[in-house]
């Protein structure tokens, strides 16, 4: 091979690299491991992690993953493919993205979904960035303080650098304050509002009046939602939202210490050309057969460069497949059942915890699978007790509450065991 290239050694291939930037030392890395050593090494790392029964949500939910899902996503034809730029040999990827888009539309009630975003918080940040471009004359975006902390933080980071002015809307009785929204709208410079359907306290927000108020002042309404919960809750379309964003993790993706997850973004027809990221469309091939391809690419970075709607390129395609297979298996009935069981477990937990007398109710509002309580004892003592019993629960929030979550995976016996520990704490 060297002969054909016309060089004498591998080092000659780097004759154009200045001598003083060639690395001459030893790399400070471990010695090469055999496959068995790699496996043993990771097993020993894994043994340093504690496997706890998870009673916390806050953006990552311990829902059950049917075995079919990882079985399908580990197929190498999906796993080891690149972005489907060559449609003729990527119909597998393109079809599942089209199905994914269709399912996101079914959940949200909106017209169009893109092919996925990195995660919920970045999807929210991108949606906030869209608001001024969707409304032209406006510059300020209202952000509900009832959103999850990491969603607010990510929105703040993106907006700080991009130059979108934000105003945090306070909570009233644990949910986004409509009067505060109206007061801000009166200043006539608001491009949009982002608020959650299920918020950081687990409360299912009553979003009546928000879309009307924002639309009345020429802004757009962005709803942050838990897609699993949308199987039972009022859809973004029904609330009058223009854009819906959120994290698909709740659709059976393992918690996996925070990633990979999948962000989603859906919108009304009129904003399709403002959407970031890839979109798959249906068409026909030269023989008239139905097929699929990437479309509306004039929005994207590889065509528009600095004028693109976003810089996003790779997204979370395989995780979009993950949630598509999950939703196919569960269907409308299964997703409803997951929500019903999570709801029942969480409410049982909530009531039993209050009975211990060690917590006080904070909000008397409808919730689904997550809630906060006010602890009437030192949180440290509670945490030690729960941890020693093998639980991760009662996450302390910024406000000094403790947050609990129960999914369909949590049994009555587990809850009873947790409550017994609380009584002792």
């Amino acid at each position, binding site marked *: 091979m060297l002969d054909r290239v016309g060089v004498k050694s591998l080092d000659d291939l780097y004759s154009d690299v200045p001598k003083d930037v060639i690395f001459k030392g030893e790399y400070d890395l471990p010695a090469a491991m055999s496959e068995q050593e790699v496996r043993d090494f990771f097993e020993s790392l894994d043994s340093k992690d504690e496997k706890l029964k998870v009673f916390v949500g806050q953006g990552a939910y311990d829902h059950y993953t049917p075995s079919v899902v990882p079985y399908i996503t580990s197929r190498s034809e999906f796993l080891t*493919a690149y972005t489907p730029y060559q449609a003729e040999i990527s119909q597998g990827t393109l079809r599942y993205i089209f199905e994914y888009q269709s399912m996101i539309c079914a959940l949200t009630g909106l017209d169009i979904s893109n092919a996925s975003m990195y995660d919920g918080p970045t999807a929210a940040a991108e949606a906030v960035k869209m608001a001024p471009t969707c409304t032209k004359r406006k510059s300020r975006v209202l952000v509900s303080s009832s959103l999850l902390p990491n969603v607010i933080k990510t929105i703040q980071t993106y907006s700080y650098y991009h130059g979108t002015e934000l105003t945090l809307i306070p909570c009233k009785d644990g949910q986004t304050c409509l009067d505060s929204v109206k007061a801000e709208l009166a200043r006539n410079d608001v491009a949009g509002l982002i608020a959650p359907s299920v918020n950081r306290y687990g409360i299912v927000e009553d979003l009546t009046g928000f879309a009307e108020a924002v639309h009345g002042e020429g802004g757009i309404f962005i709803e942050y939602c838990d897609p699993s919960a949308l199987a039972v809750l009022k859809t973004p379309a029904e609330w009058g939202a223009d854009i819906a964003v959120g994290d698909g993790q709740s659709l059976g993706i393992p918690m996996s210490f925070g990633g990979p997850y999948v962000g989603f973004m859906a919108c009304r027809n009129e904003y399709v050309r403002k959407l970031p990221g890839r979109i798959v469309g249906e068409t026909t091939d030269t023989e008239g057969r139905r097929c699929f391809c990437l479309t509306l690419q004039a929005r994207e970075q590889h065509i528009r460069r600095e004028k693109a709607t976003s810089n996003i390129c790779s997204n979370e395609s395989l995780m979009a497949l993950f949630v598509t297979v999950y939703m196919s298996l569960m269907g409308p009935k299964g997703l409803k059942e997951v929500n019903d069981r999570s709801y029942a477990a969480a409410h049982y937990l909530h009531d039993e915890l209050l009975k211990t007398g060690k917590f006080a109710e904070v909000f008397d509002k409808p919730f689904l699978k997550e809630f906060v309580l006010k602890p009437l004892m030192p949180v440290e003592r509670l945490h030690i007790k729960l941890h020693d019993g093998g639980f991760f629960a009662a996450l302390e929030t910024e406000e000094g509450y403790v947050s609990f979550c129960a999914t369909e995976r949590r049994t009555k016996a587990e809850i009873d065991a947790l409550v017994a520990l609380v009584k002792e704490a």
Partner: protein
Amino acid sequence: MKYYDKLIFELSKEGRVGYSLGKNEWTSTTDEIPAGLRRSEAVGLPQVSEVDVVRHYTNLSQMNFGVDTGFYPLGSCTMKYNPKINEEIAGMKGFLGLHPLQPASTVQGALEVYYNMDKALSAITGMASFTFDPCAGAHGELTGLMIMRQYHILNGDLKRTKVIVPDSAHGTNPASAAVCGLEVVVVKSKADGLVDVNDLKPLLGDDIAGIMMTNPNTLGLFEKDIEEIAALIHGCGGLLYYDGANMNPLIGVARPGDMGFDILHLNLHKSFSTPHGGGGPGSGPVGVCGKLVPYLPVPKVVKDEYGQFKVRGRAGVGKSDVRKNADGCEKSAGEVSGFLGNFGVILRAYAYILTLGRENVKLVGKYATLGANYIKESLKEYYKLPIPTVCKHEFVYDGLVNDGSRKAADGTTEREGATTLDVAKRLLDFGFHAPTIYFPLLFHQAIMIEPTETESIETMDAFIDVMKEIALEAAEDPAILKSAPHNAPITRPDETTAARQPILKYQDEE
């Protein structure tokens, strides 16, 4: 590969399910939630059995081409083999079951992965420390630019709002700059494909935040003036950003940190062997030089004086706003994603690095570069080679030498020649993925080829033979190429209609 026409929705039968949750020990349901908060009708998802799902997606998979299917010489995408032990590690049940907000003391193994990867990537690139929060390459670029801006802002250097980007750069570079609120200034390439230092000099000033460079650049050429460029940028107070999309040829050979780069991102799904997944999940860790470490995003994994791993600056954990705590995050560029990035991808890359070890890491770049030069030299009589010098991991042809076009005596076109698109589509017929085409934009018929170090000489020879055969076909009769592919699951899609009359979701035709 065979054509399969179904969508999962079309397999739906009322009442069919593909799951089992076991006995229900509860009686209450979400029907107790006030009706005004609930959706009015059941969600329109398919109703299918488990076997329906398995067969459907298996059929879909068979219309796909992956690295495991065959050679994937996609330029700038580094489609190297994805080792299978990495999948096993990422799929370990213990790791999958960790909640991202678990107390640090309960996830010491996971945090050690981050800490050790920080050390390993720093060793390979010559940087001081990394964040793993970005979920993809473009996300890493954006994060790196945020760090650049935050550095200038906190220095009170508010005028620095322009970033220099070469005309050969990936589209994500200018797009990331725009998302970060920076103005893009383009620096031209010379005829030999390298950044024109003379064009760069007049752009420099006290309004320059920095430069984004890909080195080797998108033509596969090492920017040999890099030290002069670094001195010029630093001289005007700017920072150097390294786009790690093309890091592969430098792995084990040279380190961006030693060239004067201040910030870089890596694509773990390119250089570090994690699978592309049909367009993600990737991972775009960002490394910085010593003076920029305080500006790295939060949360960040650190090790304390007792050897315990901690997470600095987690949002929403604990009573007070951790960002404002005096725990070393005051200068941080902020939160760029939900938690600590794509842990599952980071695990795979770590397994890859451990398998390579300090011995084999030195072979990665050299073998990748050898393969690219071997193909480049083998086909230059058939495909125009605009830049004939030694390339790094990839190179660019500018279309066919003889595209088969023919002109009539009166100068009108008698026969259309074969284009780069036609060559790419014809390659699919021979069981190869197409190279990257029509990029970089400097050439009209660009064919960008990157073989990677994991391909054997036999695979590359087979590719070379096919490329020759296609060139001969084009000269003989371009129509064979123009109607390609002939044996893929579909022929060419009508992209124009797809964009003019978009159908973007399934609609039941009842």
